[in-house]
């Protein structure tokens, strides 16, 4: 089977004493939208820059179409980047910005103009061709930046948190535009972001990075429901993590004992032994909440500290003792029947089969 379009093979990047990327294996398949996600400083932007040739790997190999490109200078690669602050050329108008890549390939003026205008029309910016970029709005500039990168018809497009400076509603709109664009073009998108909802909304595969390493890679659903380790469980989604020791093992179920109670979860494979420490992950949206003892088998009780409203979703923060906070996420309408005043004692409960056991470290 032919190798993927772009392969990162054990890539390491050190800056003096600091290791930004600690050994990354990553493959970008043709036509896929792969998002690299992680907190600041996890190495995702450095990884992208290495693909573009703006940094040199300290170790490891990067291959494009099977050929090693480590030594190629940025201008020798065909890996256009959409920058975080767009980096549009201020002394050029819109169409000249877009033409730039073609000009560097010594494409003739007429053809350049034609191709650039096509893109402008496609982006709905045909009237803006002669304008100075300072006169455009944020979303319009965004589109110019994308067009500029795509006009040379590359096989892969790199995007470095391109939407991070936009307002929330504009961001959501651009997300769907970018998503559709990728599907229409059928080319590979490598998208770096720290924003979960962005990554999960647009990507076909998500790679979670932390401390210079890929923690997990898979489709959004997998990563969401079956985090590979503690970091991913905490970083992705809204999860509660409970640590305890195995007290019983029977019929494919494991019972874990903690300071706050006993919880049942599906036994993982290979099966753990009694006395082993296990971490249980409970997604906040799978928890039922009530003011009387639980509807489901796994129960926790505590006091309501606060509520957070994001759109139609409410997140409840419950103090289950010693200041430990348990999160419950519900749709607004589900909670209307209940009375929530701060300090009330509430019961959170969930099904054993909704408990996910983290693989041991």
């Amino acid at each position, binding site marked *: 089977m032919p190798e993927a379009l772009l392969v990162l093979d054990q890539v390491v990047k050190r800056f003096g004493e600091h290791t930004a990327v600690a050994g990354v294996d990553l493959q970008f398949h043709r036509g896929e939208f792969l998002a690299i996600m992680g907190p600041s400083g996890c190495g995702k932007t450095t990884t992208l820059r290495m693909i573009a040739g703006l940094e040199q790997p300290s170790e490891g190999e990067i291959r494009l179409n099977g050929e090693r490109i480590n030594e190629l200078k940025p201008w020798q690669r065909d890996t256009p980047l959409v920058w975080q602050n767009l980096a549009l050329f*201020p002394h050029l108008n819109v169409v000249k910005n877009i033409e730039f890549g073609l000009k560097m390939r010594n494409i003739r003026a007429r053809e350049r103009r034609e191709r650039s205008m096509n893109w402008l029309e496609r982006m709905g910016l045909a009237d803006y061709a002669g304008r100075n970029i300072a006169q455009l709005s944020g979303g319009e500039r965004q589109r110019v930046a994308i067009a500029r990168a795509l006009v040379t018809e590359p096989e892969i497009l790199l995007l470095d948190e391109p939407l991070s400076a936009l307002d929330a509603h504009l961001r959501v709109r651009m997300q769907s535009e970018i998503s559709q664009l990728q599907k229409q073009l059928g080319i590979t998108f490598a998208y770096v972001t720290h924003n979960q909802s962005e990554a999960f909304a647009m990507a076909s595969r998500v790679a979670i990075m932390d401390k210079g390493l890929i923690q997990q890679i898979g489709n959004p659903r997998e990563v969401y429901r079956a985090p590979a380790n503690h970091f991913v469980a905490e970083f992705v989604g809204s999860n509660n993590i409970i640590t305890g020791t195995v007290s019983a093992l029977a019929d494919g179920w494991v019972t874990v004992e903690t300071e706050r109670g006993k919880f049942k979860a599906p036994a993982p494979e290979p099966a753990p032994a009694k006395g082993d420490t296990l971490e249980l992950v409970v997604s906040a949206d799978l928890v039922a909440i009530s003011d009387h003892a639980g509807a489901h088998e796994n129960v926790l009780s505590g006091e309501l500290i606060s509520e957070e409203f994001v759109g139609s979703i409410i997140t409840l923060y419950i103090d289950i003792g010693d200041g430990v906070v348990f999160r419950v996420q519900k749709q607004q309408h589900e909670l209307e029947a209940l009375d929530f005043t701060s300090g009330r004692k509430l019961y959170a409960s969930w099904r054993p089969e909704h408990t996910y056991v983290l693989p041991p470290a």
Partner: protein
Amino acid sequence: MSADRFIAYGLRGWFLVALIFIYVPIVINFIYSFSPGRFPTLPLGGFSTGWYELILSEAPVPRAFANSLKAGVIVALISTFIGFAAAYTDYRYRFLGKNIYLALALLPPTIPVLILGLVMLMFLSRVSLVGELYSVVLAHVVYCIPFAMALIRLRLAQIDPDLESAAWNLGANSWRAMREVIVPFTLPAIFAALALTMAVSFDEYLIAFFVGGLTETLPVRVLALLQGQVNPRINAIGSFVFAISMSLVILAQILLLTRRSGNRGIAAGGA
């Protein structure tokens, strides 16, 4: 009037006094250059362009003027080029000994002009490069590089740091990125540096005096005249020199103050 208002007006008045102090000699010079007699007084007691005619007719002055212009242009070109190169190197690269590199560029102004002149004289005469116009050029470039470098470096500090990388990313090699992105962006500062370094060179008298020997630039001619008695020739020459220097400096300022485009901060914003 309240105490605050009084103080505010007082301070502004002080500023005006300072301004007057700075401009008095320039204005006096200009007025006296039209003096009918050899000993200008106020009121002028007449009006004559005789001194201007005189200096233009006497050989040393036009020659010195031509020398000043020639030297000024060449100095402007060389020092702006080197200043640009140094500013760009500082902007783009990190390397061991960068502090020394910068010191090399920025130290000359800390050394009194007199000493620079003396030192250049000693050295250049030892290597037989003294006494000609190019001696003045060599020495003036050293003196002017810091000005050019500072102006261009300040402008480079305003550029979006990703612009050059964006050009590379889109297929421009280093040279092309320089041509297509860096140079257009710094052009106002480059022109300002050209104007400013020319003004500095045009005005500089002590180094030119030491190093030029018999090859005189205009300020050196003035210096020679200064040794003698009151001489309205100096006023006439002075007016010329002021006019040229001030025009160049005004030009430099205009170049730097307009063209606000391209500063950092043109990024995606709200809708």
